[in-house]
């Protein structure tokens, strides 16, 4: 199986000890992040309160919470697109608070493919800022279009693709840039139920293949459990708790019907309903 480009670089350039240390230190840390908006009049609206999150290399983490609980706000802060009121965001121990960059790739719910670029040009979009040669760009684009199974659509425009295909292009575009962490804000939220499950299956396969570190937010509890190794439950702007998902690494869609899965689901839903 073809390995992820980052992994190749790391294993080539680093000794065993470096590998070990990579697994001990968090890839991404969110430290005491709060966000307060000025509401109507002199009222203050606290959207996030003292959030602490750690994500280790090669983990797939989901953040679940009901809509309006501040998930997108948190992810935008992590991506550096929104400054927090207090707190820090660290990637590999370095503060990147309020500074977006190619270390944190982002997939939004929709509207973000550039309609004037073909699929291949969209995937290559970030590569031009790295000063990559045209030939290398082409190889990288082809590789990641293969990974998401869209090699036959390289020269199509986004308007010619279905919703699920568009999101696969958006994922390929983020991955081609080889980010340290892949951030996803309800990437399948706009898709129909069947396509959504296909995309979940696809994403899990992709993660098994590439072992990219992922932080995904969703309001869909089943989606979170099916995909993640660890779940953070967000509610009323706080982290209510953290639930490790003790399911086999390789998961089929059928696992959603298993008793273990349903147990975890009950646990998550109970935690979401708790009031502090």
């Amino acid at each position, binding site marked *: 199986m073809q390995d992820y480009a980052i992994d190749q670089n790391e294993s080539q350039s680093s000794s065993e000890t470096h590998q070990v240390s990579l697994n001990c230190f968090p890839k991404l840390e969110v430290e005491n992040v709060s966000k307060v908006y000025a509401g109507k009049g002199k009222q203050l609206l606290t959207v996030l309160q003292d959030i602490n999150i750690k994500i280790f290399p090669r983990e797939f983490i989901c953040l679940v919470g009901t809509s309006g609980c501040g998930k997108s706000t948190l992810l935008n802060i992590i991506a550096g697109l929104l400054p927090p009121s207090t707190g820090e965001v660290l990637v590999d121990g370095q503060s990147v608070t309020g500074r977006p*960059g190619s270390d944190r790739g*982002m997939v*939004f719910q*929709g*509207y*973000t493919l550039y309609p*004037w670029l073909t699929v291949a040009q969209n995937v290559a979009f970030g590569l031009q800022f790295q000063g990559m040669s045209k030939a290398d760009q082409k190889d990288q684009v082809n590789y990641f279009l293969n990974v998401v199974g869209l090699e036959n659509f390289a020269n199509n425009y986004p308007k010619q693709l279905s919703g699920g295909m568009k999101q696969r292009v958006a994922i390929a575009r983020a991955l081609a840039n080889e980010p340290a962490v892949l951030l996803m804000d309800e990437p399948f939220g706009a898709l129909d139920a069947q396509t959504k499950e296909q995309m979940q299956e696809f994403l899990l396969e992709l993660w098994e293949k590439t072992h990219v570190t992922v932080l995904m937010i969703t309001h869909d509890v089943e989606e979170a459990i099916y995909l993640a190794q660890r779940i953070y439950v967000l509610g009323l702007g706080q982290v209510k708790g953290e639930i490790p998902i003790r399911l086999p690494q390789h998961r089929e869609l059928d696992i959603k019907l298993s008793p273990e899965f349903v147990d975890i689901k009950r646990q998550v839903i109970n935690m979401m309903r708790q009031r502090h």
Partner: protein
Amino acid sequence: MFESIPNPPPELIKRQYSYLPNSTFWSIRQGFPRQISIVLIIMSLVLPLTVWTIVSTTELVPATFLPTPLAVLSTGITMFAENNLWADVFASCARVLAGFVLAAVIGVPVGLAIGTFHSMDSLLSPLVGTVRYMPTTGFVPLIIIWVGLDEPSKILIISLGVVLYNIIMVADAVKFIPNEMINVAYTMGASRWDVLGKVIIPATFPSVLDTLRVNISGAWNFVVIAEVLAAQNGLGFKIIQSQRLFRTDRVLFCIMLIGVIGLFLDYALKWLSKKLTPWADQVRH
């Protein structure tokens, strides 16, 4: 389990619902028969022409005020054949082109800057907003005093009339770009200049073409104003000259000729923008 559902209470049975009545002619986004559409299009051209023909041939209005369509047409042919109307058409087109290009070269970048940067918005919008409400025709005497009566003043009048609309419409187009489209570029390592050059400019390109297409009609308005004031040729000059000679047939022909040129330009620009932006999926009318 379901046996015990009671009968609905009588007030529920009497409940009146409202339904949409059928209508073809007044249908709103429900599809429209092509035949009716064609009939209406033909009517929109034939009806005014018929009224004009009837009113003028029956001399309801004296022929000196309103000549017949045929008279206007034959006058036009004579003007082309004997009065060298081509030179006037060429002169006016050249002025419109020069003024329009100047208005685009200034208006599009300024509009992009206002739409993109908060700082430029705060700096320039109040000025643009105020000047927009000052009539361009009011500036004409000043322009003549400052620049004189030659070609530059005519081009300046046309540009001034169009440039503010270019600025405002382009700035608006930038503000319609979804935030995510810009943010995702930052997460791929793009700088602010990259975002301007590789996201904002291509994203607004179709709207910029549309803006220019709509505003070229403004340029034709102002070329007539400029030529009425001081010119030795041009369609506007021909109109004012014909008015002095009481030749309503010539006036009418020149006005209609401008209309035809405008319509032709409109279609040409629509075609061009379709060719240049095959990826855009908005329907252009």
